[in-house]
């Protein structure tokens, strides 16, 4: 199996073998860095929509591999403002670089970019659709923190209806033997489609409103932001918001080695008093993004066979 020339657009395109291969390469790179691997190669970071965190993580990944980066961080400064299409932008950039990373607010733009491009395209987020490198770093973090993925009880908390990271991670976890807990108010629960998919694969899951009820079971708590504007009724929001804000007291109800993840940035879902605990894995999770993106860049460019 070779990743050379492959695009990383959607978690849907990756088999369990693919996922494990990427995690494996990431672990090796973490242990034995390869500061010369991408020497003489160029990564184009096309951020039609700004995303400082993701962009810096990709830049850091490429530079730590000895490669160079070109690109833009905002479509205001490009010809897109003049009406240039995704297709045309890619047709130009593919001649300047060896790998393209694209973020765009329009869903499906990453698939289109991959069709336009003769060099590999990595999707760094296409609107509300996919952000596969986030999912891979989430998986990597789970595996690193717990030493395994199979057999874990993984709870998602917050806005599960609109949360892109939750949908993708749920999809990726369906390759493994995990039990997933979906902890959210009914208005923000997982779309039925994802639950049907778990049913079809005969994977266990629990739909729950109360985090404290589920907490004693969980090995991983994956927090997400709840946005006020998602609620049809502000009274409902005020009633529920506290339920999905956690602090150190949660640990009294949890397994001692529970790990708390969050795709960041957080707003007020996680009290800072948790930061100092070993259970807080969210900053380590963000750091893992660099090594996972190094693995992906190395693999799709063919520099890692």
């Amino acid at each position, binding site marked *: 199996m070779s990743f050379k020339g492959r695009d990383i657009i959607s978690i849907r395109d990756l088999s369990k073998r693919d996922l494990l291969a990427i995690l494996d390469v990431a672990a090796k790179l973490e242990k034995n860095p390869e500061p010369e691997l991408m020497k003489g190669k160029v990564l184009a970071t096309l951020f039609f929509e700004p995303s400082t965190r993701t962009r810096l993580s990709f830049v850091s990944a490429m530079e730590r591999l000895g490669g160079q980066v070109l690109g833009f961080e905002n479509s205001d400064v490009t010809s897109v403002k003049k009406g240039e*299409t*995704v297709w045309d932008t890619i047709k130009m950039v593919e001649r300047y670089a060896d790998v393209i990373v694209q973020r765009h607010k329009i869903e*499906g733009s990453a698939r*289109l970019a991959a069709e336009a491009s003769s060099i590999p395209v990595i999707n760094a987020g*296409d609107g509300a659709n*996919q952000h596969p490198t986030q999912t891979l770093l989430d998986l990597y973090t789970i595996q690193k923190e717990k030493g395994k993925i199979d057999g874990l009880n993984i709870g998602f908390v917050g806005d599960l209806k609109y949360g892109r990271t939750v949908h993708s991670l749920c999809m990726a976890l369906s390759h493994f033997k995990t039990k997933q807990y979906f902890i959210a108010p009914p208005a923000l629960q997982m779309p039925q489609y994802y639950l049907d998919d778990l049913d079809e694969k005969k994977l266990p899951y629990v739909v729950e409103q109360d985090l404290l009820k589920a907490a004693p079971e969980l090995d991983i708590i994956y927090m997400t932001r709840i946005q006020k504007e998602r609620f049809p009724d502000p009274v409902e929001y005020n009633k529920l918001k506290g339920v999905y804000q956690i602090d150190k007291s949660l640990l009294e109800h949890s397994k001692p080695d529970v790990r708390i993840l969050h795709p960041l940035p957080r707003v007020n879902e996680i009290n800072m008093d948790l930061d100092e605990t070993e259970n807080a894995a969210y900053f380590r999770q963000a750091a893992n993004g660099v090594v996972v993106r190094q693995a992906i860049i190395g693999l799709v460019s063919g520099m890692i066979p």
Partner: protein
Amino acid sequence: MTKKEIKIPAIKEGTVIDHIRSRETFKIMRLANPQEFEHTINVALNLKSKKMGKKGVIKFSNRVLTQDEVNKVALLAPEATVSIIEDYKVKKKIRIKIPQIIENIVKCSNPNCITNKEDVKTRFDLAKEEPLQIRCAYCERMMGREDIHLN
């Protein structure tokens, strides 16, 4: 059904689409571009059907539907039957089947999909036949039959 009860005349050559759910009949007729068609089209609605309650039938004289058109029929009316008529007889029954990949005939229902923003041909994967679920190959939006609008 005895001959006396036939409410729509037989055609000599062409295509008959039968067993259409009545409310889908006009949708099906529109996809065959009737304005640009010079021959007769017979349409009947609300015909009694033991199986379906009410059904629709469309008969296109002197026209054999293309596979693309049959695919469109399959998306809107998977229970319909399509027969090719020659000399008043059924020459061939076309089994209608929703293709695994549906190209360029359905519009994505997601307004923020790239196919609705740039000049891109749409493409959907058949995710589930019953109940029908198709997935946009670009934005991955799942669409049921009620969301399907043709390009």
